[in-house]
């Protein structure tokens, strides 16, 4: 079956809610088939010597890349919702108090050298690693999301535009907006910079709370297309699918021209 940007976005929506494909009975309280979840795990990226200052005690930026709780790790609650259709490309990240999440990937913490992180931020978005951020990077990022293909390990790092440790449609949204001039700098969208995270540990349990998140326009469910039978969508929706954010610009331009014409009359 064909993968499309929509299937990727659907998966991203679930991933953002920390869902993984497991049987339903795994969610039953006390069910024996509930997957055992590893405790907090630290991932060290060893290649390219980009994280070799740890021993010197230099300052680090810590990014939580996937949220998961067990009954001991209660109330870690970062939920990202990605819109599947409808302009503009947008997403909402909300932080709420939720009951225990029952399944999902283990919590991983990526520690990045602060100085390197800042230098990386200047190059974020250069997905094809050619020293220029342009439309070709958007194409490369789409391919990266769909097929997990990267020009290099460095390109992979530069693809994580919001530095949340995941390369997904959220990064694509940011890159689109950057290319359209809607945002000037990815720094303000650096999730590590926005997050206000505290972690406490004792012998028996750990508690992690994330209290800040990227804030954008809210999702409108009415923009979803109800597909009656065949996966049919009216033409306008296909146009939006193809043009992405550009649709809004075209629409605005068309409306402006129409207004001008009416004024002329």
């Amino acid at each position, binding site marked *: 079956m064909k*993968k499309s940007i*929509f299937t990727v976005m659907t998966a991203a929506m679930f991933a953002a809610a920390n*869902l993984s*494909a497991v049987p339903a009975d795994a969610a039953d309280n006390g069910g024996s088939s509930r997957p055992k979840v590893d405790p907090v795990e630290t991932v060290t990226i060893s290649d390219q010597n980009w994280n070799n200052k740890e021993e010197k005690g230099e300052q680090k930026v810590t990014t939580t890349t996937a949220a998961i709780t067990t009954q001991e790790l209660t109330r870690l609650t970062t939920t990202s919702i990605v819109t599947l259709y409808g302009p503009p490309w947008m997403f909402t990240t909300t932080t709420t108090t939720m009951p225990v999440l029952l399944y999902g990937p283990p919590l991983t913490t990526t520690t990045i050298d602060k100085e390197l992180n800042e230098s990386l931020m200047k190059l974020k978005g250069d997905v094809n690693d050619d020293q220029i951020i342009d439309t070709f990077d958007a194409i490369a990022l789409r391919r990266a999301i769909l097929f997990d293909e990267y020009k290099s390990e460095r390109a992979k790092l530069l693809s994580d535009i919001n530095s949340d440790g995941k390369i997904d449609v959220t990064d694509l949204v940011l890159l689109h907006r950057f290319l359209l001039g809607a945002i000037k700098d990815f720094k303000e969208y650096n999730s590590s910079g926005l997050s206000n995270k505290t972690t406490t540990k004792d012998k028996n349990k750990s508690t992690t709370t994330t209290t800040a998140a990227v804030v954008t326009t809210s999702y409108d469910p009415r923009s979803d*297309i109800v597909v009656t*039978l*065949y996966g049919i969508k009216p033409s*306008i929706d296909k146009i939006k699918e193809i043009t992405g954010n550009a649709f809004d610009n075209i629409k605005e331009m068309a409306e402006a021209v129409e207004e001008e014409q009416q004024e002329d009359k």
Partner: protein
Amino acid sequence: MLDVNMKRTHLEQMNDYRRLLMKKPELRNLFLELTLRCNERCLHCGSQCGDVSSEELSVEQYRQFLAQLKEDMSTEGKMLDITGGEPLLRKDFFDILGAAHELGFEWGMTSNGTLIDEYVAKELKRTGMKTISISIDGLEATHDEFRRTPGGYKKAMEGIENLIRLDCFEHIQVTSVITHKSITELDELYKIFNEMDIDSWRVVNMEPMGRAKTHPELLLTDDDYRTLMEFIRNKRIAGEPVSYGCSHYLGMEYEREVRDWYFLCTAGLYTASISANGDITACLDIERRPEFVQGNILRDRFSEVWENKFSVFRRDLSDDNPTCAKCDQKEFCHGDSYHSWDFDSHKPQLCFKDILF
């Protein structure tokens, strides 16, 4: 499960939107039932199609109707959804759809796929077909038995391949109606479809309507329903283009998770249908009762019927049933899909409360 509070907020928005659509409906999907004749005799057929006689409109009658529709309501944002019976049984099929294409309508169709050889596939391309959904209801033996057509599976699969080879259609979908018998075949079916270059797989349950009412043993059990939903959700989590259909409110657990939208029965709001004899109604799956026929295109102007009649479809059926009226999901479900309502006993024939939520 995705965040419940988020879903509740979205469903409340959908409720407001539904109220708006009741006042200002927006035609998006117009179903044309070209015939009731069919070369298969499926056990689940909601229209009792098969080797039956069928009143049918002529090419010229369709041409006049579509020209009038375009004049009154334009072609913009509308899809013609061609269905039957098996629509390709009509010898003048390409004349009808050629006329629709010339007028500027976009169209898609549902078919059993058995008649789509290379020539037919090319003709579908020539006459502007955008999307198609072909039925594969189980593994080969199950499919052929269910549709009471020996060799039907092989022919349908060949039909799909003929379409894929042309590489020109916007969306090629496979639809599977799952029964209590075929629920165990989901994984095997997935393996087969995953190897094919189709755009999506729509998985729906056998509905207790039409001919299916005489085969209650094939209806899904409560456990089957849960298995079905969980199967779809897991595929979607993995990024696969698998989806449940438009039927039924699924509750907080599965709403928005097994399909790309929140529940909204579009009958009379987005959707209208022209049955084989020209009768105008909302959705072809709704029980065929005289009170639901709002006009006929041979004597009425469709746009006037759409604008001024149809009030029977623009209301909440849940108001007719005391249990539904008191249900805490009423504002999201509204009595569920119109086609699934039992108009004799005034209750839904299939309600997922206490099954899925």
